[in-house]
């Protein structure tokens, strides 16, 4: 009798437990995507890591307000941010993005080769480039390792954080910044670019690299949590960190590259109904309003140098250069990232 009771009791408990679990979870069906509440059009944008703040805080609200006042129609954005190469691979694997903003033009090119981008982004203003920023060195407050230029990163005992060139566009810019900077300086000093010197500096710095995070933003988080003595990254990352009162200093190299970031429409996934909005959004990126927003978030304007001069925190670079110094991405990638960096720096120990 007693045995029977305890058995029945156990059964009741089992049913109660099962019912609670089931009812708890059965009722909560898949949550509705946040961007789809309230109607309107939803655009999906994949951006490289450091675009996050300016897009979410200024560009999206700015464009939505503009579109609404002109057309009375709500536009919302859903976005994902990661290393430039990572988001490109995601789109190549079938992620349905309407717009991509990349760190390097090579990624836009890869999407074109894959048939995802059919329109010519270079016909947009400034060949599709929406903003730029130079590559700088971030060091701990007071610069305890006395780092003044790229070459100082090769000194013994300096721990360098450098994003991974496989997944991060910023990492490729950084490699080009170091390599090109040595070429520029040698050209000025001895009249001709000294490839051997540039390779040697790149190798020596790479020996001091302590970790290679997946994106510029990941690299910054590592640096912020106290890892490493120096970080090569976009200038705006340093300025954003200063805004947040991080104990760091920004070191402007004598010569460095300006990274230029293209925005591209992923034609394959843009529905005919959304096309006018997507096109308007792209055009919006070169308006005075958007360019001002970029500068406010420490990108440098591509359309208006006056906006850049108004920004007091931007450093001055003695010998700046762009990707054109290497003959564009179509040459820089195979000749420097692959033949120099991958074959002669990364794979040589």
């Amino acid at each position, binding site marked *: 009798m007693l045995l029977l009771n*305890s*058995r029945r009791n*156990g*059964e009741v*408990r*089992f049913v109660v*437990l*099962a019912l609670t*679990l089931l009812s708890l*979870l059965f009722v*909560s*069906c*898949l*949550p509705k*995507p*946040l*961007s789809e509440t309230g109607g309107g059009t939803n655009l*999906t944008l994949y951006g490289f*890591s450091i675009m*996050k703040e300016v897009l979410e805080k200024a560009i999206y609200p700015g464009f939505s307000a503009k579109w609404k006042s002109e057309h009375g129609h709500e536009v919302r954005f*859903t*976005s*994902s*941010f*990661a290393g430039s190469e990572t988001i490109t691979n*995601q789109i190549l*694997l*079938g*992620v*349905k993005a309407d717009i991509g903003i990349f760190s390097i033009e090579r990624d836009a090119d890869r999407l074109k080769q894959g048939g995802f981008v059919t329109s010519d982004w270079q016909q947009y203003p400034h060949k599709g480039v929406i903003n730029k920023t130079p590559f700088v060195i971030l060091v701990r407050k007071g610069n305890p390792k006395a780092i003044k230029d790229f070459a100082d990163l090769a000194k013994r005992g300096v721990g360098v954080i450098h994003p991974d060139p496989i997944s991060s566009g910023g990492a490729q810019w950084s490699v080009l910044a170091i390599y090109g900077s040595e070429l520029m300086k040698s050209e000025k000093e001895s009249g001709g670019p000294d490839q051997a010197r540039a390779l040697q500096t790149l190798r020596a710095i790479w020996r001091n690299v302590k970790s290679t995070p997946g*994106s510029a*933003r*990941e690299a*910054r*988080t590592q640096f*912020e*949590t106290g890892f490493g003595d120096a970080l090569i990254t976009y200038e705006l990352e340093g300025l954003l960190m200063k805004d947040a009162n991080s104990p760091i200093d920004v070191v402007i190299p004598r010569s460095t590259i300006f990274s230029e970031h293209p925005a591209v429409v992923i034609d394959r996934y843009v529905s005919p109904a959304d096309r006018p909005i997507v096109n308007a959004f792209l055009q919006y990126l070169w308006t005075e309003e958007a360019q001002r927003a970029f500068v406010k978030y420490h990108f440098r304007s591509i359309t208006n140098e006056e906006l850049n001069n108004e920004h007091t925190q931007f450093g001055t670079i003695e010998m700046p250069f762009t990707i054109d110094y290497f003959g564009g991405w179509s040459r820089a990638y195979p000749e420097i990232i692959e033949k120099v960096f991958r074959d002669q720096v990364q794979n040589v120990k």
Partner: protein
Amino acid sequence: MGSVFSSMRHVRGFDVARPLSIGMLVFMMLPLVFLPLASIFIFGTSKGLDSFWAALMAPEAIFALKLSMVTSFWATAFNVIFGLFAAYVLSRYNFWGRNALIVTISLPTAIPTAVAGFALLLLWGPYGTLGRYLAPHGIEMMFTAGAIILANIFVTFPLAFGVIKPVFDTMSRSLEEASATIGATRVQTFWHVTLPSLRGAIVSGALLTFARAVGEFGSTILVSGNLAGRTQTAPLYIFAKFNEGQIEAANAIAIVLALFSFLIFSVLFFARDWLDVE
């Protein structure tokens, strides 16, 4: 036996090994488990409960938690039913290839979760082996909640099966035979005799699967598309926030997940006692 031993110890007086070994155990766990967990709580509440609460109530955070729960639930429901069925078939019948099947079911334990995600992409992705034939018909699995469920099913595949099968193996057939001799059908026997003796295993298998699925990261980040407020689960949210340098936001959700697994394993621990009454 046990009581004899303990009384023998008593006769000899104070057993030094007891406090020493317990102390040693706790000491060893301190840097490995306790302190890392404690630091999440310390950091998460360092800026006050208000900012912790605000981080938790962010719409994207709530969405991520909900999505994790729902996708894990469906993966669990599937894997428990499948595990039950597979355990039944594999312990009742002996057939050619049986061992190969058992090994295959257990495989996902050792496969890196990133490989699991990658494999799913290669199969179901818009350009995958199967996906490319489905995509023109508007059927797309990847980068949706469905993809997250598939990934969860894959990585937690062996868990429920692994808990249920040993119970099947050791179950006395005589009860089922007795049931059959008094005229019960196969279904009746399964429902009234076999299933009740499995309930402990089913509940613990389900909880294990659910807990593991909620924490899944490696495969989800590949198949979900990682869109905040759309396909971003709680672990992906934590990773994204950490990468953005918003460590407080990441931490708030980490605390929720830590408490959640604590709850699940507590239930698991106590449930076993009152579910397995014989």
